[in-house]
């Protein structure tokens, strides 16, 4: 944003907030219809919330500016590029991976396949791309979806920098050259670039092209040092991620062990009482083990080193289980059960987290929107971030309303999880501006509740004549119109150059059921411990994804508004309701309907058809298709073999480590640091 436009935006921001404060002050001090408090108070609260969002938006725009161009990428940086996938079509993943492989700056490309597909593995090896999957240590452990996928790969690679691309996000060859220069600044932890979707038609019925967010909003947050990491199209500094993971680990280590020792002690006490009834001869073993746990708790209280506490506990358990010369041996199943119980306790207690697949989790695993939480904690540690406003990657947006809604639901739920568990106002280390920037995005999802009020208030007046505020209409317009106009001007001016501003406003209102569901889901996950499943957004159009059934609440709301309007007009004509109030309310209804209509249009959308062109170069597409068919061929011929791996490699080359199936060809740095199985 140029400096004159920024000055105008700042002026408008002050004006809009000033008018807003006047309006809300006037509303609270004399217009609340206390006799109808049950609708009047929610309404004024909703309006206050909207003012709050306006203030946060104004703050975001306050520092929105375009950065100076990045310095040229320095030579000699080692970069790992991760293409994450779970169940996306193999062809799609390969196109992205090949485009990533062909980026001009020297790097190593890896496909991180959470779906462990043999044909993808073969195809990747054909085109010289590394392939990483989850090894046996993940069996039976929580997998943490994409965060776990990336964390797993982080411990099998060694590049200074890590670029993360979703399976559908195809990078341009110059992607790395354009952003690596920012890392000259030692404090930069990550650089985020925009997400741009090539399969979205100009009118964007699903509201997926987020030009306001990947534009003025991110630039605004960047101006305050709070540009978000958005999960893809970004480059991160490995050491920053590892430092974050280590900080979390050491902070939680003592607390976890204390809780684990206590839990272990209860388990053993339970076991002891069970054995007293079932198998009294086994009791001495359990008693010895219990005594060992008590000793461990004592060592813990004295501040002993945690690894040594676990070592001694393990040794004590082994001694307890050792057969005694003077007693008869225990029956086999009892011995087996005891061993299992004691192993279970040890796993829980061990500070090295032997109950998990990874000791350190660099990317945050506590929420399904791991990117925002990770970015927030990096900022809290003092790292800085950069938003680079240049489209360098082209991705796929959902093509049907069902998929689009489930994607929004995931982002919203994850954000609300962070809001409830790890509120930015409470996290130590963030600046005030950073806190407000994070809060701005999270609180925007509370608009679902405000929308409910904005929908029910007019309906109530039109049908039963209860007006939620006591005010002279002229006075109302005098207060409201300046605020409204100033807000719209601010919005238009700050967002100029971004398309989809109206669509964005529509979606923010019309998706109120999604926002409400996300808020309730996030709250129940944090406060009630309900587990939230990570649903991967489908990258192919779903036949069942279109249709009004996905937007039923919005359809019902539209119908109710229309019926209420008819009733309201009838009442006015019959003299039961005042004309000015009715006209005012009808205008309100028109606005509501205009906003809701976006949901109905989205439900009818069946895909972009011919209006969009796939930008993937034909050579890449052809190569991908060839590699896929190679993969499928060899997979078929190896069906009897299970994983086609053994027939492709000389048996003596079989890696002990089943996580990295093969390294990328022509890695830029020496094999010993890139290939974990080399001597």
């Amino acid at each position, binding site marked *: 944003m140029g400096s004159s436009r920024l000055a105008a935006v700042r002026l408008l921001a002050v004006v809009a907030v000033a008018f807003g404060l006047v309006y809300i002050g006037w509303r609270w001090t004399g217009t609340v219809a206390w006799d109808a408090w049950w609708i009047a108070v929610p309404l004024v609260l909703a309006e206050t919330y909207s003012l709050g969002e306006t203030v946060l938006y104004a703050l975001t725009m306050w520092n929105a500016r375009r950065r100076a161009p990045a310095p040229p990428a320095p030579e000699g940086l080692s970069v790992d590029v991760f293409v994450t996938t779970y169940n996306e079509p193999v062809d799609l993943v390969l196109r992205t991976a090949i485009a990533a492989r062909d980026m001009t700056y020297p790097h190593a490309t890896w496909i991180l396949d959470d779906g462990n597909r043999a044909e993808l593995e073969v195809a990747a090896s054909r085109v010289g791309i590394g392939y990483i999957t989850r090894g046996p*240590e993940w069996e039976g452990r929580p997998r943490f979806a994409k965060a776990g996928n990336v964390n797993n790969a982080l*411990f*099998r*690679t*060694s*590049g*200074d920098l890590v670029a993360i691309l979703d399976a559908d996000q195809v990078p341009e060859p110059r992607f790395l050259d354009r952003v690596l220069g920012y890392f000259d600044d030692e404090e930069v932890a990550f650089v985020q670039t925009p997400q741009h979707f090539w399969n979205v038609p100009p009118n964007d019925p699903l509201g997926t092209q987020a030009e306001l967010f990947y534009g003025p909003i991110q630039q605004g947050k960047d101006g305050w040092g709070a540009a978000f990491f958005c999960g893809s199209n970004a480059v991160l500094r*490995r*050491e920053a991620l*590892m*430092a974050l*993971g*280590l*900080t979390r*680990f*050491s*902070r939680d*280590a*003592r607390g976890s062990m204390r809780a684990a020792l206590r839990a272990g002690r209860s388990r053993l006490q339970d076991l002891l009482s069970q054995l007293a009834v079932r198998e009294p001869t086994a009791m001495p073993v359990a008693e010895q083990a219990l005594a060992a746990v008590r000793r461990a708790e004592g060592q813990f209280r*004295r*501040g*002993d*080193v*945690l*690894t*040594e506490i*676990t*070592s*001694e506990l*393990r*040794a004590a358990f*082994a001694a307890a289980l050792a057969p005694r010369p003077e007693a008869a041996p225990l029956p086999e199943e009892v011995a087996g059960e005891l061993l299992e119980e004691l192993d279970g306790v040890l796993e829980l207690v*061990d*500070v*090295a*987290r*032997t109950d*998990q697949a*990874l*000791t*350190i989790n*660099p990317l945050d695993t506590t929420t399904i929107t791991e990117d925002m939480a990770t970015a927030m904690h990096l900022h809290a540690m003092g790292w800085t971030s950069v938003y680079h406003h240049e489209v360098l990657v082209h991705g796929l947006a959902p093509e049907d309303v069902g998929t689009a809604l489930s994607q929004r639901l995931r982002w919203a739920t994850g954000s609300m999880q962070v809001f409830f568990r790890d509120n930015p106002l409470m996290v130590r280390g963030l600046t005030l501006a950073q806190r407000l920037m994070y809060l701005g995005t999270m609180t925007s999802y509370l608009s679902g509740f405000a929308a409910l009020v904005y929908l029910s208030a007019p309906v109530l007046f039109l049908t039963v004549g209860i007006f939620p505020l006591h005010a002279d209409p002229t006075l109302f317009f005098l207060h409201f119109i300046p605020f409204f106009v100033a807000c719209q001007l601010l919005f238009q001016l700050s967002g100029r150059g971004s398309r989809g501003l109206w669509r964005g406003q529509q979606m923010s209102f019309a998706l109120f059921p999604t926002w409400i569901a996300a808020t309730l889901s996030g709250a129940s996950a944090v406060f009630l411990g309900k587990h939230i499943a990570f649903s991967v957004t489908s990258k192919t159009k779903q036949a069942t994804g279109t249709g009004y059934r996905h937007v039923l609440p919005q359809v019902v709301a539209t119908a109710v508004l229309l019926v209420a309007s008819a009733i309201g007009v009838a009442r006015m004509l019959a003299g039961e309701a005042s004309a000015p109030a009715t006209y005012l309310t009808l205008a309100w209804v028109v606005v509501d309907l205009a906003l809701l209509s976006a949901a109905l249009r989205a439900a009818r959308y069946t895909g972009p058809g011919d209006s969009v062109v796939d930008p993937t170069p034909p050579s890449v597409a052809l190569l991908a298709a060839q590699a896929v068919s190679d993969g499928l061929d060899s997979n078929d011929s190896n069906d009897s073999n299970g994983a086609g791996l053994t027939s492709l490699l000389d048996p003596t080359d079989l890696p*002990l*480590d089943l996580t990295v199936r093969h390294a990328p060809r022509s890695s830029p740095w020496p094999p*010993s*640091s*890139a290939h*974990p*199985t*080399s*001597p």
Partner: protein
Amino acid sequence: MATIVSAPDLTLTHPVTSIDLPTGGRLDAAAVLALRGPVAAAVADGPVLVLLDVSGVDGVSPSGVAGLLDLLRVVRSRGGDLRFFGASAAVRHAFTALRLDTVARIYGGHDEARGLLATRAS
């Protein structure tokens, strides 16, 4: 407070292996990645006490420390243990800065790490 601290004794039950850090003096992502293969091979057949001499380390990065802790998990999940020993200011400083000194100990020498010295001070 005694100056010699000996590790809990595992040697009676487990074989002992020493692993060398790759040369270069840096404990970073590449170094711990190079260690994965040898460590995995050492514990492939069962519980082993793995000893790592860090005295030659003059530069430590967070990836290096995180990688070491993950290797600790790998070894312990097989019933063994991984212990570091050697006087390296860089490693000591890193552990203190990351508040890991109460989590894991860097032993003075090979014998202490093996738990051979009888006196165990608290």
